[in-house]
């Protein structure tokens, strides 16, 4: 397919890998923020192509992974109520809450539906006027415009049986949190191309200046990712620290103004809990006052258990690049994608799951 195949060209991949090897003279730790990129790195064996001196850090960029078990429990509790249809993205159904996951709830009779687009929920709401349709709204900035549009449209259509359980998170505050940690060893960052497609470069420029760190915006194909590494390493070796946009086929400086407008119309920035990381100030989105009546937490009175720290799990350290998934004593033993102990094993985009899936003894 166009703009996929070209960016998988094996000749370019080989050439880029060679060029990275040629310019790398010191040890660097580089974090790719996005789980989709983590997945690509392991899937295409990019970790095997780049020099030993580069340590890979797999960032927190998987919305499914970082959704707290307590919110999943809330979704489960709402899903179990009579006359409720709970809609969710497919990635979410197998993710464990404190005791159960959505798939188990569906097996025991709850009406849980996997949707492709949040807009599909509106159709379901119209077709089922006697049911209450709740959308479990997870996602980063990439998904927020779609989630926001569902609420905005619902208001226009005056659908009274639709609401959302908002669990949306924002990437730049999470990056800042990781970079502020005293254990942090991140020297350079590959920034997530699709989040940047929505929000543009502004936040990344601020972060790059504040932490004096190179940030290169990249896409998701092997050539994109290696090109990203090449430019981060070039900057590091030259003692530079700026933002470079290498995904300019999709990312504009100002982001996507139409998408930002609708996010702003429906949501306010709020503090959020991240599974495996903890509370990050101003790192999430909640419905603003005008749309607060769409909040499922207000419509349905359900209790939620308090999140317990994922016990033996070291995913917090994995996310900061202090340890590799394979260095965790539970990896592949007590902890597998079927029985994940921590955030980074829960979806195929989490670092532990990606290592498990592609079974590499990677660096």
């Amino acid at each position: 397919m166009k703009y996929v195949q070209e960016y998988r060209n094996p000749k370019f991949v080989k050439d880029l890998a060679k060029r990275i090897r040629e310019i790398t003279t010191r040890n660097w730790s580089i974090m790719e923020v996005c789980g989709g990129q983590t997945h690509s790195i392991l899937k295409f064996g990019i970790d095997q192509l780049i020099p030993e001196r580069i340590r890979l850090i797999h960032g927190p960029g998987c919305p499914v992974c970082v959704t707290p078990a307590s919110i999943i429990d809330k979704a489960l509790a709402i899903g179990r109520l009579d006359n409720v249809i709970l809609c969710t993205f497919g990635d979410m159904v197998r993710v464990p809450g404190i005791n159960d996951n959505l798939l188990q709830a569906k097996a025991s009779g709850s009406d849980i539906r996997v949707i492709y687009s949040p807009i599909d929920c509106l159709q379901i709401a119209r077709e089922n006027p006697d049911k209450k349709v709740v959308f479990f709204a997870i996602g980063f900035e990439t998904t927020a415009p779609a989630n926001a549009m569902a609420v905005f449209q619902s208001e226009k259509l005056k659908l009274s049986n639709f609401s959302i359980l908002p669990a949306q998170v924002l990437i730049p505050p999470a990056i800042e949190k990781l970079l502020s940690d005293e254990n942090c060893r991140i020297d350079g960052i590959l920034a997530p191309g699709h989040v940047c497609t929505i929000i543009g470069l502004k936040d990344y420029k601020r972060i790059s200046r504040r932490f004096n760190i190179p940030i290169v915006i990249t896409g998701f194909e092997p050539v994109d990712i290696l090109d990203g590494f090449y430019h981060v390493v070039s900057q590091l070796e030259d003692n530079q620290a700026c933002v470079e946009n290498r995904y300019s086929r999709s990312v504009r400086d100002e982001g996507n103004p139409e998408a930002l407008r609708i996010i702003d119309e429906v949501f306010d920035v709020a503090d959020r809990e991240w599974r495996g990381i903890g509370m990050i100030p101003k790192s999430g989105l909640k419905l603003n006052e005008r749309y607060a009546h769409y909040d499922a937490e207000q419509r349905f009175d359900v209790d939620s258990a308090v999140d317990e720290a994922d016990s033996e799990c070291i995913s917090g350290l994995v996310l900061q690049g202090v340890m590799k998934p394979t260095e965790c004593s539970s990896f592949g033993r007590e902890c597998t994608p079927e029985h994940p102990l921590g955030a980074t094993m829960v979806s195929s985009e989490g670092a532990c799951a990606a290592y498990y899936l592609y079974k590499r003894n990677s660096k």
Partner: protein
Amino acid sequence: MCLAVPGKLIELIDNDELMPVGKVDFGGVARDVILAYVPDAKIGDYVNVHAGFAISIIDAEEAEQILQCFQQLEDIAE
């Protein structure tokens, strides 16, 4: 989860001001896609699609430019 898939806009189906919809071809499979966030998209453009919404028009010039850089380096190497 933040994956967006490129496809070619082949038809405009609904001109609704708020939620225009078009047909996007993903290498032989066509799907309805909401074009609200790409108001300038024209038939023949490639768009990146996420969760049923086009989130950007793929800038062909930018895409080619970067590829050409790699091609040139290849040529020099050979």
